C-alpha cells in the first residue's frame, strides 16, 4: 500500500484522495485473468443479465424454428428427433437459464443499490454462483451442437426420461445441469436474503423498502423453499440413470408420480419466482412515471407475500389428468382460484395509482401498460384451467401453451424489457433510443398476440402440445401459419430492442444520475455507478429518499467507514438501525476455480462415478484456498 491511511477516519470531506482510496479499495482488476477474479455485485449482476439475455436469444431462435416447423401440416423442416430436442431446449433454457437468472441478475445488480450499500453479503459466493450458471449453460447448449441434447421435455417426466426410454447422454446432461445451476439459484437467493435483511441503509425500515426489493426478497425465499425439491428429484433421477437405483422405476417398486409431485412442487412456485420480481419492476416503473407515491404500498407487499405462500399449494393442478382422487384435487382448484385475489389487488392498486396521474409515456411505461392487457388474459385462462373438468380438455394442448406464454411473456418478459429500458442508463451510463423503444414495443405487442392468441383456439380444436407435425385434415394449418407469422413479428420487436441496446452502448446519449426523476436510492449513484456504488452510504427517512432530498435540499449520510478496506454498514432487520460494520472480501480467482472443480464432478459423473469423488476433493481444496485468512485483515 502506497497511500497513507486517512488521518482521521471520521473525516467526511469528499477530497480526491479519499475518493481515490475508495476507488482503489473497491477496484476490480483488469485483464483477462482479472476478469475471473471479480466479485463486486454490479459486475456479477451485469454478467447474469447479459448471459441470461444471450440464452433468451438462443432459446428464442429455437422457438422460431419450432414455429416454422409447425407453420403448415406435414412440414419437413425438422424431423421428430430434432424437433423434440428443440422444444425441450426451448423450455428448459427459457425457464432455468433465462427467466430465473435474469431476474436474479437484476436483483443482484439493483438490490444493493436500492438499499444503499456497496456490495452484497457474500461477494465470492456471488461470483461462484455466476460461474456455475455460465458453465451449466454452456454445457447444455454444447449438447445441442453435438446433437445429443435432452429431448424429454422441460419437465422431463419419468419413465420417458429413464435410461430405458432415453438411453443417450441428453437426459443425463439435463438432470446434472439442472441440479448444478439450481445451486447457482440458491447461492443468489441466500445472498439476496442476507443482503436485504442486514445491509439496508440506516433508516430504511422494512416498511420503507422499495417494492422491487420486497419482490426480490419474496422471490429469494421462494427459491430457497422450491429449489431443493427439483434438486432432490433430479438427483434421484441421476441415481436411477447412473447407478440403477429404482426411485421412479415401476418394476423395481418405484413411482413415476413421485417425480411429478416433486417436480411441480418446485415447478409451480417457479412460475411465480419469475413473476414476482416482474411485479416489483412494474410498481417501480409506475411510481417513477406517475411521479407520485404508489397507492397501497402495504397491500402490494402483502399481495406479493401472499402469492409467495399460496404458490406452494397449487402444484397438483399440473396433475389433474393423472388419475388422482377428485376430492383431493378439488382443493387445488380452490387454491388456484385464490391467486386471483392478490393478483387482482395488485392490478387495482396500480390502476388506482395511475388514475388521473400525469403519466410520462416513456418506453418503460409502455411495456408496463402492455403487461396489463396480456397478463389479465393470461390470468383469466389460468383460472379456467384450475377447473378440473375443463383442464381435462385443454391440459397438454395449445390452449395451455397459449396460457403460459401469456403469463410468462406478458407477466414477466414485458415488465422485464420495460425494466431494462428503465435501468439501462444506470447500468451503462447511456440512454436507449425512445423511438426505437416504442417501435420495439408495438411490434412485440402485436406480434405476441398474433402468435399466441390463436393457440387458444387450436387447443380447443384438439391440437396437443409437443407434436412435431399434424395431418392436413385436422384443419389446424391456417391458425398455425398465423401464429408463425406473429412469431416473426414478435422476434423483430425484440430484435429492435437488441439493436437499440447495442447502438446505445456506443452512440447513446449520456445519462444523468437520475434521468427519470425516480425516488429510489440507485438513482443517487452515478450512471454507471462507481465501483463503490455510493461515495457515502445514505441515511433514509421515507420510502422516497430522492424526492425528500430534492424537496429538502439536504441529505444525511453515514460517516466513519474506512476507505482502505471493503467496509459496509450492517443494520437491524426490522428498523435498519446501524449495528455494526462488515468487512467484505476482495477479488479472487478461487470462486471460479471452485466452480470449475464442481462442474468437473457434475459433468464427469455422467461418464463415471469416480469423478464425483475427484471433484469432491478438488472442491474441498479450492474452498480452503477461498477461505484462507489474509494477513492485513488479521492484524486489523
Amino acid at each position, binding site marked *: 500500500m502506497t497511500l497513507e491511511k486517512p488521518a482521521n477516519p471520521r473525516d467526511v470531506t469528499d477530497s480526491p484522495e479519499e475518493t481515490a482510496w475508495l476507488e482503489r479499495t473497491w477496484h476490480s482488476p483488469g485483464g483477462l485473468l482479472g476478469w475471473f477474479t471479480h466479485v463486486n455485485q454490479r459486475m456479477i449482476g451485469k454478467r447474469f443479465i447479459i448471459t441470461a439475455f444471450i440464452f433468451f436469444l438462443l432459446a428464442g431462435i429455437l422457438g422460431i424454428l419450432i414455429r416454422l416447423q409447425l407453420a403448415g401440416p*406435414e412440414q419437413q423442416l425438422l424431423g*421428430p428427433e430434432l424437433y*423434440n430436442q428443440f422444444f425441450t431446449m426451448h423450455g428448459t433454457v427459457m425457464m432455468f437459464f433465462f427467466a430465473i437468472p435474469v431476474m436474479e441478475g437484476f436483483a443482484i445488480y439493483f438490490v444493493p443499490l436500492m438499499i444503499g450499500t456497496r456490495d452484497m453479503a457474500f461477494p465470492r459466493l456471488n461470483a461462484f454462483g455466476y460461474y456455475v450458471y455460465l458453465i451449466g449453460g454452456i454445457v447444455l447448449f454444447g449438447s445441442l451442437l453435438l446433437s445429443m441434447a435432452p429431448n*424429454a421435455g422441460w419437465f422431463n*417426466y419419468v*419413465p*420417458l426420461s429413464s435410461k430405458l*426410454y432415453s438411453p443417450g447422454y441428453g437426459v443425463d446432461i439435463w438432470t446434472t445441469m439442472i441440479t448444478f445451476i439450481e445451486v447457482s439459484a440458491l447461492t443468489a437467493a441466500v445472498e439476496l436474503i442476507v443482503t436485504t435483511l442486514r445491509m439496508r441503509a440506516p433508516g430504511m425500515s422494512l416498511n420503507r423498502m422499495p417494492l422491487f426489493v420486497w419482490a426480490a426478497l419474496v422471490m429469494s425465499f421462494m427459491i430457497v423453499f422450491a429449489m431443493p425439491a427439483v434438486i432432490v428429484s433430479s438427483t434421484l433421477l441421476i441415481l436411477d440413470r447412473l447407478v440403477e437405483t429404482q426411485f421412479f422405476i415401476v418394476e423395481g417398486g418405484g413411482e*413415476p*408420480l413421485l417425480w411429478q409431485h416433486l417436480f411441480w412442487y418446485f415447478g409451480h412456485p417457479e412460475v411465480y419466482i419469475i413473476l414476482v420480481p416482474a411485479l416489483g419492476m412494474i410498481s417501480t416503473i409506475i411510481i417513477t412515471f406517475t411521479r407520485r407515491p404508489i397507492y397501497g404500498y402495504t*397491500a402490494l407487499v402483502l399481495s406479493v407475500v401472499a402469492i409467495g405462500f399460496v404458490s406452494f399449494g397449487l402444484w397438483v393442478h399440473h396433475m389433474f*389428468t*393423472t*388419475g388422482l382422487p*377428485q376430492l383431493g384435487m378439488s382443493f387445488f*382448484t380452490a387454491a388456484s*382460484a385464490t391467486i386471483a*385475489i392478490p393478483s*387482482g*389487488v395488485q*392490478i*387495482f*392498486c396500480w*390502476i*388506482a395509482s*395511475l*388514475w*388521473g*396521474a*400525469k*403519466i410520462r409515456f416513456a418506453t418503460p411505461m409502455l411495456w408496463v*401498460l402492455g403487461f*396489463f392487457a396480456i397478463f*389479465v*388474459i393470461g390470468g*383469466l*385462462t389460468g*383460472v*379456467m384451467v*384450475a*377447473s*378440473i*373438468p*375443463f*383442464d*381435462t*380438455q385443454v*391440459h*397438454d394442448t395449445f390452449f395451455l401453451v397459449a396460457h403460459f406464454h401469456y403469463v410468462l411473456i406478458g407477466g414477466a418478459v414485458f415488465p422485464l424489457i420495460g425494466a431494462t429500458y428503465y435501468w439501462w442508463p444506470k447500468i451503462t451510463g447511456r440512454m436507449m433510443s425512445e423511438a426505437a423503444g416504442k417501435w420495439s414495443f408495438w411490434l412485440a405487442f402485436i406480434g405476441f398476440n398474433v402468435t399466441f392468441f390463436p393457440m387458444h383456439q387450436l387447443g*380447443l*380444436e*384438439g391440437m*396437443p402440445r*409437443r407434436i*412435431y*407435425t399434424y*395431418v*392436413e*385434415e385436422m*384443419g389446424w394449418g391456417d391458425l398455425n401459419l398465423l401464429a408463425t407469422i406473429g412469431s416473426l413479428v414478435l422476434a423483430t420487436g425484440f430484435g429492435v430492442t437488441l439493436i437499440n441496446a447495442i447502438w446505445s452502448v456506443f452512440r447513446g446519449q449520456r445519462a444523468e444520475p437520475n434521468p427519470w426523476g425516480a425516488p429510489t436510492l440507485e438513482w443517487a449513484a452515478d450512471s454507471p455507478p462507481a465501483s463503490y456504488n455510493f461515495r457515502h452510504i445514505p441515511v433514509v427517512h421515507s420510502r422516497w429518499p430522492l424526492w425528500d432530498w430534492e424537496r429538502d435540499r439536504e441529505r444525511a449520510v453515514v460517516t466513519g467507514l474506512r476507505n482502505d478496506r471493503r467496509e459496509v454498514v450492517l443494520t437491524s432487520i426490522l428498523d435498519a438501525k446501524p449495528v455494526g460494520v462488515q468487512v467484505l472480501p476482495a477479488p479472487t480467482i478461487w470462486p471460479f476455480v471452485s466452480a470449475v472443480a464442481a462442474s468437473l464432478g457434475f459433468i464427469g459423473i455422467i461418464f463415471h462415478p469416480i469423478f464425483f469423488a475427484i471433484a469432491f476433493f478438488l472442491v474441498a481444496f479450492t474452498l480452503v484456498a477461498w477461505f484462507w485468512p489474509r494477513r492485513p485483515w488479521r492484524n486489523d
Partner: protein
Amino acid sequence: MSLSKHIRTTGPLGAAAPFLAACEGPQSALDPAGSAAALIARLWWPTLFVAILVTLLVLALLTVAVFRAHRRHAALPLNARQSRNLVIAGGIILPLAATIPFALSSFSIGRTINAPLPDDAMTVEVVGKQWWWEVHYLDEAGNRIATTANEIHIPAGEPVRFLLKSDNVIHSFWVPNLQGKTDMMPGRTNVTSVTADEPGVYRGQCAEYCGTQHALMAFLLVAEEPERFDAWLEGQRQPATMPETQAQARGHDEFFEAGCAGCHTIRGTSASGDLGPDLTHIASRRTLAGATVPNRIGHLGGWITDPQHVKPGSRMPPSELTPEELKTLLGYLESLE
C-alpha cells in the same frame, strides 16, 4: 366442406381423415358428441363470456385511469377512500364473484362426469404403446375376449368404461369430442368413461408427450348402433380366417418368413408376437400406423416396406421383400377381415 376431398396420395403421410367426413370438428372440444364433453363445453361458453367481460372491464378502467389527466390537462388522482373502494371492488369482490360460481359449477360437473358407472357397463382396456394403442375387449369376468389396435368401437348411447394402462412411458387417452383426457400411468390403472350420444367416427390423440412419435399417435373411436357394434365385436372375437386361395397361403407363409410373426399376433395361427399390433382382423380397420395413413393396399405396402418414411422413429423395422413377396403378403393381410 367435406374433408374427404383432401385425400393425399403423395407425401409421407396419407389421409386418415376421409373416415371422419361425418363430423365438422373431428377432434374438437367445442363440438361435443358425448355427455362429458357437452358438460365441459357448457362450462366453457359462460366462462369465456365472463372472462371477456372482466378483461374489457379492467382495460376500460385502465384506459380511463391513464387518459383522465391528459383530457383534463391536470392531475385528478383518486382520494384514499376512492382508491380503497376501487381496490376492494376490483381486487377482492370481482375475483370472488367470478371464481366462486365457476369453481362450484366445475365441482358439480366433475362429480357428474366421474359418477360411477353401472356394474354391467361394457369395459374396454386400452394400453398405451410407443406409439400406438392396444385395445382389449373384456367380458364381465374381466377376461380379454378380443384384441385390436388404434381403432376402438363402442355402442352409441351407452356409457363405456375404459381401463387405461401403460407398460412403458406415460401416455394420455383423449377423445376431445367425447371426453377429457386421462393419463395412462405405468404401474396403475386409470378409469374413465366415454359416452357417445350418436353414431359417428371421432379422432383421439395421445396428449402426454411420450417420445419420438408422440405426434402421430392417434386412433379412431367408432360409435355404432348397438346391433352393429355387437356384430363387429363378434367378428373381432373370431380367430383369423384361414387362407382360402393358394396366393393367400403363400402370403401366410411369407408372413412368417419375413419375420412379421416375431412382433405381431394373428390369432388362429402360430404368430403370437406381442410387440406390435394384433393383426388378426387388420383388414377390418380403417387406418394404419396409429391413425396416420388410411388402410389401403398402397399405404399398407408402403408402411411394410419403409415404415421410417411414413413415421420416422417407429419401432417397426423396414423389410426387404421383393415386389412379388410383398404382393403375396399384402394379399394375405387384405384377407384378414
